[in-house]
């Protein structure tokens, strides 16, 4: 509906619950026609059963700037408020599906006007504002936000917070529960008889060997390779049982004394010995693997008697590696000569 008094024009838009009347003048300088409105002088929004709203152009634009995006988001079922407390108009979702429209006066000392609109009244408001916006007789630049599709993050707002957090919190709880149950499970015990040679002049039996008196399960083979390490291809183990721990300690204590430097200088290189050790830890016989002289045995404090094909009764065969650089012994159960190593 257009009403004009002289040059003053009035546009009226009606819906069931509201009636919007916009008054203005054509902007002659911009070449507007007599029936156009280029300058808004005032507007009034009549509500059924509510106080009328009126204001200037900027208030009308502020109203459109919050109502249109709010309606757009509602179509996508996203309830989100628009307009802050510092703006003349704001709209927010209210309880029971209502919509809270807040209008703040530019005059000081005036309390904000709060209106609760239902869906029908909101739709009426959107209709009248739409018809005003699209009226070709309104020759105004309305700075309205562009209508665009929502991004996934914005769409998440329509999912309740509880449902959004349910999956990540549930996963975190399951992780904590599994970690708690796992921490209650007993840890496997480490295997005894771990090998290692440490400082201090003593070696340690790196692997279980036969008990005292057990026959060396060695089946020496013919060929020789002079390997001091004794890494034989088909070494047969002398025994599968663990050595007597006390025997080991006693042997360590006997070999603990380091060979003097002159002796080591005379020896000059790493040696491997097969030792026959009695239950008290005393070395009864000793046969060198790669050093052949009895003087080496004396220099190292070992008995001159070789082990022989048959070890003395009641003794345990032990492999002893001497590091001439530092005088340390590394002890291991005797597991036989390699095929290529010469028989003692």
């Amino acid at each position, binding site marked *: 509906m257009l009403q004009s008094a002289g040059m003053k024009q009035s546009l009226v838009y009606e819906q069931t619950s509201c009636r919007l009347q916009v008054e203005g003048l054509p902007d002659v300088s911009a070449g507007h026609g007599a029936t156009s409105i280029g300058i808004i002088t005032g507007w009034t929004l009549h509500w059924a059963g509510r106080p009328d709203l009126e204001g200037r152009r900027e208030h009308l634009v502020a109203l459109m700037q919050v109502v249109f995006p709010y309606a*757009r988001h509602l*179509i996508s079922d996203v309830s989100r408020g628009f307009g802050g407390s510092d703006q003349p108009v704001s709209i927010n979702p209210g309880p029971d599906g209502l919509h809270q429209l807040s209008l703040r006066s530019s005059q000081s000392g005036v309390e904000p006007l709060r209106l609760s609109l239902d869906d*029908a009244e909101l739709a009426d408001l959107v209709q009248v504002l*739409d018809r005003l916006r699209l009226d070709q007789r309104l020759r105004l630049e309305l700075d309205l936000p562009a209508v665009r599709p929502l991004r996934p993050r914005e769409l998440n707002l329509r999912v309740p917070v509880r449902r959004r957090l349910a999956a990540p919190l549930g996963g975190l709880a399951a992780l904590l529960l599994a970690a708690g149950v796992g921490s209650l499970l007993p840890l496997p015990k480490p295997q005894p008889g771990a090998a290692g040679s440490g400082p201090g002049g003593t070696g340690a039996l790196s692997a279980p060997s036969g008990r005292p008196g057990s026959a060396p399960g060695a089946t020496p083979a013919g060929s020789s390779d002079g390997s001091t390490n004794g890494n034989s291809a088909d070494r047969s183990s002398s025994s599968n049982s663990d050595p007597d721990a006390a025997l080991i300690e006693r042997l360590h204590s006997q070999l603990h004394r380091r060979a003097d430097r002159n002796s080591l200088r005379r020896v000059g290189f790493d040696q491997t010995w097969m030792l026959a050790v009695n239950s008290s830890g005393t070395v009864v016989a000793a046969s060198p693997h790669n050093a052949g002289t009895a003087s080496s045995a004396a220099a190292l404090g070992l008995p001159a008697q070789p082990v022989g094909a048959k070890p003395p009764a009641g003794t345990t065969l032990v492999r002893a590696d001497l590091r001439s650089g530092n005088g340390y012994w590394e002890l291991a159960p005797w597991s036989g000569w390699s095929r290529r190593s010469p028989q003692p």
Partner: protein
Amino acid sequence: MVQDLSSPAATDIPLSGSGPIPADPTSGAAADPAAAPDARPLSRRGLERLDLMLLCLEALDLNGGEAMVWLCEQMGYSSVFPSRVALWQGRCHNPLRRTCRRGNLDSRQTEALIQILAAMADRLYPLLRSLLSGSDPPEVNAERWQLFQGRLSELLRERMNMRRSGVHSLIDPLQGAQQRRALVRSLALGAGSGGAERLRASLLDAAA
């Protein structure tokens, strides 16, 4: 002097991006009324919502199907949907349909359906508003919703795949009440010329 001229009705104002557009004098040919401002195809959810909203309008208006065809001709979309069968085929791209067509709507078809939807919503705006109104007596309002829910359920059972949980939830009297209200509210807010823009943007939302 006061001139009392009735403001042009909503249907007289050309819908944005569509409607019978006069021939361009420079080109000598009529501009395509279905020139889509946004050529992106609708997502699966967008197709579902578009068809469901058209179905809601058919539930409100017993002659909704005929009105749709008539509007299609009036708005100049005969080149897009030459017949009611073509219009039905376009709507059958909804994955929830019992007989669903593969593929997607092209941009012209999408824009045409959106404009038809907005025009029909504008035409049935009083009915939409009466459903949403909280000022009427609760019994009257409940009766309106019950009638609408009954008609909508009949259409859903007739046309949609009843094995889909989304269809079941929409038919359910209690579980689907909020969803039905959201559809009606979307139609009321999307009615008319300006509503077509909002409907288009909403249907092009990112697939959730």
